[in-house]
């Protein structure tokens, strides 16, 4: 093993921060529905990929600016999130069954993507794609920087909303003790739908970030599951800032691993971390 140079390590760590911010952005919506609604939404990843493909389609075929596609994608995926939550709530599924049902939904979406865009690799060539600037010795790519900024803004925005708005307070109360919150007049179903809409929109935004920075193929949907779940569990279920912080931590440790070993070993970092987290979490008796 050759020891990488300091610049290479710093560049690796920086790219770890960038990819970690995407982990955090994906984990934000996932963790909110898991922690606050007790729905483990595997379809969140499929939504993000669907949004990525939509963004790809609108930008490369329709000629739209990738960031402008957000105007279409955000409301569309908010509506999708609401629809899924409405369905799950109607059948009052358990967390395990929500995992099963959204697993099925993810498979449907994956098949749909494959049917429309085939299993070939797709890469969005946009005005942002090649843009980068130099800070000292380091290169900063613009699409990744956009992801980081979006993730930061959304995480802090939701953190503030959970803390300072009535809807946020109501949601936290519902997560803590739904019957008591309901007794105080909080409409559980309506609030759940609002949150699911926000999380759907988050999946859409994460999808646009995916499209900006990554090559797309349908089977990649599941490649993100382990690492994002690790970020959510490390950051804390239902936390707004936790997934981003944890995601960046994981991203950096992955990137540094890749600087030392072959990139094909990278999945082992996040999945091992997820296993370790599950096993070593303090037990609540």
């Amino acid at each position: 093993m050759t020891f990488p140079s300091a610049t290479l390590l710093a560049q690796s760590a920086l790219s770890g921060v960038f990819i970690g911010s995407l982990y955090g952005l994906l984990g934000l919506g996932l963790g909110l529905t898991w922690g606050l609604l007790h729905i483990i939404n595997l379809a969140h990843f499929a939504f993000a990929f669907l949004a990525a493909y939509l963004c790809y389609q609108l930008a490369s075929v329709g000629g739209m600016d990738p960031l402008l596609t957000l105007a279409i994608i955000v409301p569309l995926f908010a509506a999708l999130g609401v629809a899924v939550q409405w369905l799950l709530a109607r059948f009052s599924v358990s967390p395990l069954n929500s995992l099963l049902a959204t697993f099925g939904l993810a498979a449907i979406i994956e098949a749909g993507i494959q049917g429309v865009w085939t299993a070939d690799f797709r890469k969005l060539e946009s005005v942002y794609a090649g843009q980068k600037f130099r800070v000292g010795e380091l290169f900063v790519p613009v699409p990744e920087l956009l992801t980081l900024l979006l993730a930061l803004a959304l995480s802090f925005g939701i953190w503030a909303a959970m803390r300072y708005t009535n809807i946020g307070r109501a949601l936290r109360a519902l997560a803590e003790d739904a019957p008591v919150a309901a007794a105080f007049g909080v409409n559980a179903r309506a609030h759940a739908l609002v949150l699911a809409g926000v999380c759907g929109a988050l999946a859409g935004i994460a999808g646009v970030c995916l499209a900006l920075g990554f090559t797309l193929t349908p089977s990649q949907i599941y490649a993100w599951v382990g690492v994002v779940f690790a970020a959510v569990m490390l950051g804390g279920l239902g936390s707004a800032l936790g997934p981003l912080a944890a995601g960046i931590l994981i991203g950096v440790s992955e990137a540094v691993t890749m600087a030392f070993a072959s990139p094909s070993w990278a999945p082992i970092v996040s999945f091992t971390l997820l296993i370790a987290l599950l096993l070593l979490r303090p037990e609540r008796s």
Partner: protein
Amino acid sequence: MAIGGAGVALAVIPLLHLPAFYESFLYLVFHWIVLATSWNILSGYSGYFSFGHGAFYGTGIYTTAVLAGKFDMPFLWTLPVAGIMAAVLGVTLGAIVFRVRSVRGELFALLTLAVTFVLATIVLNTPIDGGPGVYLSGVAVPALAPTPSGTFYVLALVLAVATLMIARSIAQARLGLGLFAIHDDEDAAEVMGVPTYRYKLVAFGVSCGLAGIAGGIHALFIAYVTAGSVFNITVPLTVVLMSVLGGTRHWAGPALGATAITLLLYASTAAEQAVAGKAVTGAILVAAVLFMPDGILGLRWKRRKAAAVPATTVHVDAHIATPPPVSARTTSPRADAPLLSLHGLRKSFSGVRALDGVDFDVHDGEILGVLGPNGSGKSTLINVVSGHYRADAGSIRFAGADIARWRAHAIARAGIARTYQIPRPFAHLTVRDNVTLAAMFGAAALDRSRADAAAARWLHFTGLAHRGHVLPGELNLHQTKFLELARALAAQPRLLLLDEVLSGLTPAEIDGAVELIRRIRDRGTTIVLVEHVMRVVTELSDRIVVLDQGRVLAQGSAADVMARDDVAIAYLGVVHA
């Protein structure tokens, strides 16, 4: 033996010289029957849904691929190795994971999914695969039938028959009943004597081993193995779907689901329909989870049970029933050696001292009442003695042995049974099976048929004889509490811990229960009675222990203890002299 008969009948098919397509198609049906049924042995029966079945199946595939493809081991010899490798992996993983109480349900599912990808990364980056995949085109297909496709057919048929027989015998054995109890309430199962850790390990090992053998056969069937095609989510998704669709609580459910889904997926083999097949699979999974979470066989079972339930409920009071002719242990109260002896027992919950050095004895044949205000440590005491919680410090001597570090199921087997303040019946077992389970796994340690007979007697004893065939959810509170009691009694404990069995009952029901408790003691069972209903405690108890803030405040006869000022202060706050 219907499975065996069907197997023999199907074994003649290769002799009919049908086109290879039919044999290959039926091979796939049997292949998926093995995978789904083996998955169900752990995940369906015990509720530990694994998303990692692909990992164990893949272990089998790669074991055979490497041994036969790279080391020229005869194909048939690789199959047992494939099964053993997968079983060893499963048991090793289980030995770690099953020790962690919090990894249940959805977290277990996630963890096993993660294991799949870790394994895939290792296989891909080491000489096991190394990237390009493993070819088995040079491996000879043994001539078990006139054609190679016939050979695969026969192999898969034999394995499917064996798997179904194993799944059925487990479902009907102690192991199966224990796993069903784990599914409903693992902690309660452990406290009633089910060795939950060992049972889960055995089930996981069997489940993974069978999947490994299926993988071994499939390696040669597909003849070219890549990490990407093996360690993906298709296998877990499909087996979960098949089992959920067919019904996870019946041994034949996954086989039914597997047959249906395989027909659907492989009826047409055109490539563009593979994508549609995936979408249909996903849609059926969503629909099955939402509309019939119990599966096809689950629905049928429920309907049959519902038809058997009589519309009217006859109320039989406990004290009318005759005591069952059970060989009561000849226990004479002995003053010298206490049956249970607690010394310096401590238990804290994140800083709160629930038990702060408790010492007292329980003598053979007595009823000891335990009183104390809310939060004084009464329930914690029962939880620690029954092994539900482990004590931080101190000793619990029961019939001569220190059981403070024992697992709950060993304590149950040694002769301690308990009831829960909030009843915890196994929701998917009938009332009678609930009691049968206690008789099988508790100190009584009866075999299934004798336990079932004993269960009938205990249901009669507690006045629930007419409710034996219903699910616990259909009982009212009074009946549910008596079911708790019947379960504890069926274990035939030497020491019975009753945690507020009377709370929430009407005065008339309480009178019946008091009579019942007295008759239990008359049969020679020692009782520790935790209770809020003061009248009952003073009426029933030979001695009373008063707990306050995790310590013994007073003990002695009812009259003495209740006259003490400090006891009154603990209860009422001030003394109004």
